[in-house]
């Protein structure tokens, strides 16, 4: 642990609590034990100043690292930066060129293959006021396909000596594995299925995911989320307090009240 380069000044992460993407970065900070601080703000303000001065694209997360003067956005780019600069003992990455790029490959797959499609499924399933079955089906099918690709890759991976755990690259957990957790964590909600249904036929992906959510770093991340959601008067699923169900929330949105 001692060889880790811990930044002197806290790295600031800008986030809005409900969505999964910012928690990807917090998870990494927690797992590396880095010096960081959270700047939590309301989702209604992501496309406004001052945040758009930090990220012209108006999406969370973004980071400001006072130790280097760098401002950076897109969680994938933040992952690569943090790992390159601060994971000096290479606990969550690999030294060899090939393995390093395999980690990057899975990170890109997460960024382009998992995130956008899980996000669209969530939108059409919960937030869009009118039900469009073909759109829900399209994105639900894509989620299952992506989970299938992951399950296949894990099935082909050599189980680690000792606990027999399977990881995407090089026999140990890396940032590439971690990047998938925040969206997978929301699968029951996104797919409107029970946990068993979500993972049916995907034993390797399930074991992989469940191993990671047991980590103290993930649990701490979710404690921070719970606290910050509460601060903004939001329940766990993003629905404002006082509204019981998603259906009720959806009806309110449909009536234009939210």
């Amino acid at each position, binding site marked *: 642990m001692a060889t880790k380069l811990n930044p*002197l*000044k806290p790295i600031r992460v800008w986030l809005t609590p409900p969505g999964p993407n910012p928690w990807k970065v917090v998870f990494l900070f927690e797992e590396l034990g880095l010096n960081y601080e959270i700047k939590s703000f309301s989702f209604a303000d992501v496309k406004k100043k001052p945040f758009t001065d930090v990220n*012209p*694209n*108006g*999406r969370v997360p973004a980071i400001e690292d*006072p*130790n*280097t*003067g*760098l401002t*950076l*956005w*897109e*969680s*994938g*780019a933040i992952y*690569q*930066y943090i790992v*390159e*600069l601060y994971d*000096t003992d290479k606990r969550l990455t690999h*030294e060899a*060129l*090939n393995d390093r*790029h*395999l980690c*990057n*490959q899975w*990170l*890109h*797959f997460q*960024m*382009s*293959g998992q*995130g*956008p*499609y899980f996000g*669209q499924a969530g939108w059409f399933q919960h937030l*869009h006021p*009118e039900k*469009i079955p*073909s*759109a829900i*089906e*399209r994105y639900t*099918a*894509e989620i*299952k*396909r992506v989970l*299938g*690709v992951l399950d*296949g*890759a894990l099935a082909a991976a050599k189980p680690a000596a000792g606990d027999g755990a399977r990881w995407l690259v090089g026999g140990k957990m890396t940032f590439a594995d971690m990047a998938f957790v925040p969206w997978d964590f929301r699968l029951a909600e996104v797919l409107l299925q029970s946990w068993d249904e979500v993972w049916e036929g995907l034993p390797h992906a399930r074991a992989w995911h469940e191993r990671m959510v047991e980590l103290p770093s993930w649990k701490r991340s979710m404690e921070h989320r719970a606290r910050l959601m509460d601060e903004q008067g939001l329940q766990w699923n993003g629905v404002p307090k006082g509204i019981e169900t998603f259906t009720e929330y959806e009806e309110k949105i449909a009536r234009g009240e939210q």
Partner: protein
Amino acid sequence: MNGDLENSTPLQSMQRIALLGSHLTSTRNKPSHKMAETKSDIHLYTAQTPNGIKVSMLLEELGLPYKVTAIEISKNTQKEPWFLDINPNGRIPALTDTLPDGSPVRLFESGSIMQYLVDRYDTEHKLSYPRGTAEYYEVNSWLFWQMGGLGPMQGQANHFARYAPEKIQYGIDRYQNETRRLYRVMDTQLSKSTSGYLVGDRLTIADIACWGWVAAGSWAGIRMDGLDHLNAWLDKVLTHPGCEKGRHVPSRHTMLDNRNKTEEELDKAAQKTRAWVQQGMKEDAKK
């Protein structure tokens, strides 16, 4: 040291990053990597699509020799077992190569392929910045912005505007509006750039990653008016001979011609592709 950083100019802090970076890379730069590698055993599996041409444009710009296998997406070659061995995700592009020690490299995801290629072969930083500089990381912001935003959102615009079995106006609007928003973000970034490229003073993998998508904007039904810097950039990228050559791999790039076509003509042209997309969706739904 704290005080130093607080008062440092942007340049000083960039040097600081460079310092941090070189500290970190010193163990990584094995002597054999100091010189640009010119021998290569690169094999690209690709098709004439925005994601496919990213890699051929980059390879041409780097002047690297490579073999090409054209994948017929409409015949689902990308779902055949031999291809799934290279890319279990069943999509193009994919790339194979050999390391100096003889071990094989197999990569998918265009973004990671591009990062690999500049990391290993662009040691003179023609199209990239040295690891540890601010620009190096800013390029990655834009690269992931393309991978996680522009590509998927414009892909969905294509789907609802061109390929979906039923016309869902909401789906068309949602993704065309988001894509147009992303184009505006890019246009604003380019308007602030003195070089006309996304990051710093040169063409990088961030520009190349976005080019095929923006060039296909009309196909996705995105209005291209009022985006002066973006339109100028579209032409500027093609002044690089490698980009011009690489966009025609494995066959002619014709997307720019769509800029003058009517909606009716575009719709007619979509019919062929519509058939395979819908077939693919049916097969996925059965699984």
